[in-house]
């Protein structure tokens, strides 16, 4: 199976600080991949670099190819043609991602007219798309402004915009973090159903387990472990993944919760060698050398793996 998205040696940096280091992964057609990490792990920067949306002063290097076309290090004009058509993204906060002064139907239509569809055609298709993301009375919703919709409805509108040009890859960055749990459940089911191929970014392990087939665990700007979701979550090898899984399980009342000591360092303050070694209970002098991500299928970068 040839990969849809191939990322090789992707690094993202600002000034002298390296924020994402030498990232390599692939996503096959129709595959749903989760990217897990805590704040400051570099997961959102990874997504933004694929979308060509990195903030000023932040630069990506390496290669990322979507169906044979380069995404990183190419001119803005070329990225612009792909963004919103070949690959698209659903952001975390639908209230800030949507234009408060534009009716939502027009916002869904806009992404289609920008990629060459006629105005009238786009307007009609916008209503169809709103129906596809299961918004009730899509024609009514198309005439509403974002503030008239609930958080869950707004996020569905975001999804309709992302799907408008039938992209080959959908990137979701914490699409349900701001939503209530019952709404989150519906939204996750919808995303799993409509996504062509998916890169799903979240800090919530259970959300990844319910949507994705494969997972990449990021910490300190590096992928520290990757593999099939079930395999990684039941037999974690990297000590960070192990700690994260333990910390996610809420034990009964009166017992101590397992924790990872310390906190995530600020960008650029991660230790040399293994990025996790200053918080790792198993760290030894060997960890001062960076371990490589090794393994076929289920890969990990750790000198003292669990299990």
């Amino acid at each position: 199976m040839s990969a849809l998205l191939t990322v090789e040696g992707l690094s993202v940096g600002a000034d002298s600080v390296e924020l994402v280091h030498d990232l390599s992964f692939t996503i096959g057609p129709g595959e749903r991949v989760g990217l897990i990490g805590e704040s400051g792990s570099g997961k959102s920067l990874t997504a933004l670099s694929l979308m060509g949306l990195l903030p000023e002063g932040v630069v990506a290097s390496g290669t990322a190819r979507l169906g044979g076309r380069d995404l990183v290090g190419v001119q803005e004009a070329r990225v612009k043609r792909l963004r919103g058509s070949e690959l698209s993204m659903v952001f975390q906060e639908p209230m800030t991602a949507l234009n408060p002064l534009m009716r939502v139907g027009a916002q869904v239509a806009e992404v289609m007219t920008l990629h060459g569809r006629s105005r009238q055609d786009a307007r009609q298709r916008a209503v169809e798309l709103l129906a596809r993301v299961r918004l009730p009375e899509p024609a009514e919703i198309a005439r509403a402004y974002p503030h008239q919709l609930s958080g869950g409805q707004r996020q569905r509108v975001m999804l309709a915009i992302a799907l408008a040009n039938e992209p080959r890859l959908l990137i979701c960055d914490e699409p349900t973090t701001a939503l209530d749990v019952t709404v989150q459940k519906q939204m996750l089911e919808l995303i799993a159903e409509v996504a062509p191929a998916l890169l799903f970014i979240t800090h919530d392990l259970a959300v990844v387990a319910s949507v994705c087939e494969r997972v990449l665990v990021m910490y300190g700007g590096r992928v520290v472990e990757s593999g099939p979701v079930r395999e990684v979550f039941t037999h974690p090898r990297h000590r960070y993944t192990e700690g994260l899984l333990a910390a996610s399980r809420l034990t009964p009342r009166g017992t101590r919760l397992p924790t990872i000591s310390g906190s995530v360092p600020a960008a650029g303050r991660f230790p040399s060698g293994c990025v996790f070694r200053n918080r790792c209970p198993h760290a030894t002098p060997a960890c001062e050398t960076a371990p490589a991500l090794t393994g076929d299928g289920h890969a990990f970068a750790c000198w003292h793996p669990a299990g």
Partner: protein
Amino acid sequence: MPSHAGTPPVDATQVDETPADAMIEARDLSRVYRRPRTSLTRPGAVVHALREVSLTVRRGERYGIVGESGSGKSTLLRLLCGLDQPTSGTIRFDGREITGLPERRLRFLRENLQIVFQDPMSSLDPRMRVRDLVAEPLVALGLPAGDRVAELLEAVGLPATAADRYPHQFSGGQRQRIAIARALAPRPKVLVADEPVSALDVSVRGQILNLLADLVDELGLTLVFVSHDLSVVRHVCETVAVMSAGQIVEAGPVDDVWAAPAHPYTRELLEAVPTLEGLL
């Protein structure tokens, strides 16, 4: 979110008499808001944020309140903390009525009930040093600070040197520790925590929950813990009230509610939370 307006409100106390060890006692609390008018000729719509809610939090109890956005949990919390007045109903705190009292007569409440908010980034003034932040409730109440700040920072696991720094120099988990230290400054009897771990990363969430549990034990505090996540409440609390559409739809020992939810909304809430155990 489904509406359960038709269901009768649950009396979370389950008894008519006030128990002798009641710390917070709310009776038939209702709060009605009026939306801003959208028409010149008609008044704005009326919102029933809270409908006849009753609950009793006993001394030393860890009481959880669970609900989604719009369920009325924040309104209830504001009333219990004396930050808003109910449209009808009464609240007694440690045996004393707090409804209808002016701010100058709420000193006993301010001394004995303190709050930890959800987002430590916005609840801590970025221009104040940690020393002044933690001492602020003492200053506001005219209490002597003395060595209290150093004592509090130690209690929440922060180095004494933290006192001279500003909030932005700390991580999210450390900021929440500062917020907890500040809440504990006037030696309150009741600690109210409003989604204290929702904004935190998983790897530090456990640290803060462990810290809260330790402090509640050591200081013999009564804890009111608000969360949208029933599994977090199950870890922290012994009693839970589930809120929906301005009412408490189910209340009782958290293990019972968890094992056998009686109300359809509670069941829905439990099923919606993705758990690793259930998925793998």
